[in-house]
């Protein structure tokens, strides 16, 4: 059995977004946003359990989140949520064969049919929508919008 341990780059290889275009960056952002949202979800379940401590416990918890830092963290969570949702729908459609092109004979210059403009637009749309949602969220949290 050949030793191929040198091919295992581990977490360093997984988080390296270079050389493979926007699809690779979307892959990285999808995992980062997923992990961030899972951490937030666990924290959210914990923070909402403070309501069992009555009005004092709840108000204390709310006061600790209603700060500039708290609003900025929540805006990042909103951005991650929107990106993860929109890009996730793109990935699901791709897995279902939507927008990945039809199989053809591989001819030079071997451009992969699945990495086409439709999916690139999907990725850029996810990033733009996430940015818009973050700005809207910040406006609501800082009281600019009701």
């Amino acid at each position, binding site marked *: 059995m050949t030793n191929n341990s040198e091919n295992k780059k581990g977490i360093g290889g997984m988080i390296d977004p270079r050389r493979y275009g926007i699809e690779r960056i979307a892959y990285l952002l999808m995992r980062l946003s997923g992990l961030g949202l899972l951490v937030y979800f666990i924290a959210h379940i914990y923070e909402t359990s403070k*309501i069992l401590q009555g009005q004092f416990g709840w108000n204390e918890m709310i006061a600790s989140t209603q700060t500039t830092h708290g609003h900025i963290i929540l805006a990042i969570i909103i951005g991650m949520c929107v990106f993860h949702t929109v890009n996730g729908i793109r990935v699901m459609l791709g897995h279902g064969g939507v927008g990945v092109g039809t199989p053809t004979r591989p001819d030079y210059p071997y451009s992969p049919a699945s990495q086409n403009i439709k999916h690139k637009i999907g990725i850029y749309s996810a990033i733009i929508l996430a940015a818009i949602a973050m700005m809207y969220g910040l406006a609501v949290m800082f009281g600019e919008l009701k």
Partner: protein
Amino acid sequence: MRESIIMKIHYGSALAAVGLVAVHILMRLTQGYAESLEYANVIRNYHFLPYAGMLEIILILLSIHGFIGLRVILLELKQGRIYEKVISYSCFIAMIGLITYGTRTIIMVNMG
């Protein structure tokens, strides 16, 4: 369980959660962000049975989706029979733990 079935559960739970989370967020925005987080208002939300039921469904769907996603990431990093079993069972136990903890909050507040 076959990986294809796990991925179908992963995608299904995501799609279902998107709609319900949208309702959950809209509830915060329809009455003003700060007012919606007031103690009396949150208690009223929990006492409204359809909303409490929706929170429970969101809790289950997002726990399933989140921990299957974590499992996928960890299995992409490293493979191996024992490693995969440890990751799968750990994620399952963590998922059950989170659902139990969240359900406890919902039931205790709903029961008043």
